[in-house]
């Protein structure tokens, strides 16, 4: 009898211990961008994301089905296209978000929208990855917040990094010698070494005509670009028309043939978002650089 009781007590203790452990294991505290602690009691089941890179992170961690609301700019993967939109990152529709009853809101930086949502009692996690270091931190934080086992999230991250490494290694030696000008918008604003795209280029060992000292996205004087004579120009669709009109640009060698890489909107997204698609983005850039180096005149197909 005593034996039975003892066994039962042990069993209870074990169950109790497991239960206690699992409870405490469920409450997670993460640090957001402002080094503030955010406590997430259980694995979130209804997530609203207001930043495309965060949306992609959630999906890469296999939690896509938990997304109930997205900002209007999130467009990958295809499955999220059916998720209701709740405004933009800077102008979220407070009512819509609250009505979705999310248990976690992923927002960028310190916007008034995030403050208001927090004041209304929602759990808001502020993250905004701006470079490669950020990307890793945000990746880990989101994984923790979503209660994804560390082993799984690390594994996926390793996969992404391997992809980036592969892109780096796919560069031909000639391609690596080139200097790049990456144009972000037709103002013209360029991406310097300290931006996310710049860091990707630096990982590939390729030069950037805009040094880090200019800030991540300096507004460039077009003449300066002419003087700097980049070997390759990478730009989005919207820039191409205005580029031809800038004085001296049409004669730039970088404007000829394959040395000018124009990315469609969907591809640009991949390049600029500091999220899980950085490997694909790096590969895009590597392909562009290789083609430019080869200087062959295959029709532009991207």
């Amino acid at each position, binding site marked *: 009898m005593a034996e039975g009781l003892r066994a039962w007590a042990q069993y209870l203790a074990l169950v109790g211990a497991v239960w206690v452990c699992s409870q405490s294991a469920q409450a997670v505290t993460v640090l957001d961008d402002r080094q503030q602690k955010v406590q997430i009691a259980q694995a979130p089941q209804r997530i609203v994301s207001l930043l495309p890179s965060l949306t992609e992170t959630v999906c890469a961690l296999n939690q896509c089905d938990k997304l109930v609301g997205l900002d209007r700019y999130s467009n990958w993967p295809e499955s999220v296209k059916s998720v209701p939109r709740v405004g933009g990152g800077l102008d979220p*529709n407070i*009512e*819509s978000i609250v*009505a979705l009853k999310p248990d976690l809101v992923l927002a960028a930086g310190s916007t008034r*929208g995030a*403050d208001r949502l927090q004041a*209304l009692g929602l759990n808001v996690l502020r993250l905004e990855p701006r470079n490669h270091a950020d990307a890793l931190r945000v990746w880990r934080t989101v994984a923790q917040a979503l209660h994804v086992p560390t082993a799984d999230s690390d594994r996926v991250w390793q996969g992404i990094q391997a992809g980036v490494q592969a892109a780096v290694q796919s560069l031909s030696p000639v391609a690596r010698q080139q200097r790049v000008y990456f144009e972000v918008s037709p103002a013209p604003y360029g991406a310097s070494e300290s931006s996310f795209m710049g860091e990707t280029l630096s990982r590939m060992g390729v030069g950037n005509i805009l040094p880090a000292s200019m800030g991540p996205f300096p507004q460039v004087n077009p003449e300066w670009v002419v003087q700097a004579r980049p070997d390759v120009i990478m730009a989005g669709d919207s820039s191409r028309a205005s580029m031809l009109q800038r004085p001296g640009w049409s004669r730039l060698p970088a404007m000829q043939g394959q040395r000018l890489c124009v990315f469609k909107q969907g591809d640009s997204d991949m390049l600029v978002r500091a999220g899980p698609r950085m490997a694909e983005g790096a590969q895009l850039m590597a392909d562009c650089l290789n083609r430019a180096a080869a200087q062959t005149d295959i029709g532009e197909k991207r």
Partner: protein
Amino acid sequence: MLLTLGLSVVLLGTAAGSQGWQAWWSVGADAVSHQIVWDIRLPRSLGAWLGGALLGLAGAVAQGLFRNPLADPYLLGSASGASLGVGVYLSLWGGSAWAMNAWLGLGLTGAAFVGAVLAVVLTLLLARGVQQTLRLLLAGVVVGVVLGAVTSLISLLQPKVLQAMQGFMLGSTAFVSWSACATMAAVLALCLALAWVFARVLDALSLGEATAQSLGVPLPQARMALVGVISLATGAAVAHIGLVAFVGLAAPHLVRSLVRCTHAWRLLLSALMGGALLVLADVVARVLLAPQELPVGVLTAVLGGGYLLWRVYRDADSGVRS
């Protein structure tokens, strides 16, 4: 006169209430979310009314003080000051890891308010006091232009600020909370009281500066107080709902075309009218493209501009001087 007052209040009531059934989703079933929705919509509508009232009051005071029917509350540079405050705040603390709570919990609203008030102080310094109205006006224009240029410079140097700034410039009631309403209500009460006390001065001023002086009006003190009213009211409104155009300009005009009265009543009615106008505009902004929202500033510009155009044509036709 009282009819107009009643009308304005009734307008507010229906406007605030109409969102309930004009909503683009029905919240009848869930009592909890119904409560939450009113926790969002009610402060928003109230905030829109308070912001509109502040702007209407400031506009009426500005038009009386400068004896110019085209004066609006942003004349003394407060709009540019608020934008600059927002720009500086965003560029310094926009995405950094600095805890914003350390900065006296001021936040974006505080920055905008401080910016607006500082801009008016700068205008006063430039005009070397409130001695001459013309100098005050000119100084206000100069300050507005210069601060605007500085703001543009900041958004050039820090492009990440650009989008947030644009959101601010277009005006929106989306982020108005109960505490914001309380602040605006307090400022409104203070400004109304102050303006009421000096309403006589505005009446006397309407006969000319020298005449007002000969009537024994304490002009310098009154001007100072009224400029203070304009800057406080505008600063508070802009800080919470952004730059909303035309409400401060159109509300006093509407009041003037409807009712003949001295400034004491006109100030109060302009506040009420401004509040009603902005709530109306806010409701339309939310409903027009549901589920998307238009920035309320865009709507007030369109409506206000249209109204003023209509006034110009109507007066040109009938030959009546407005």
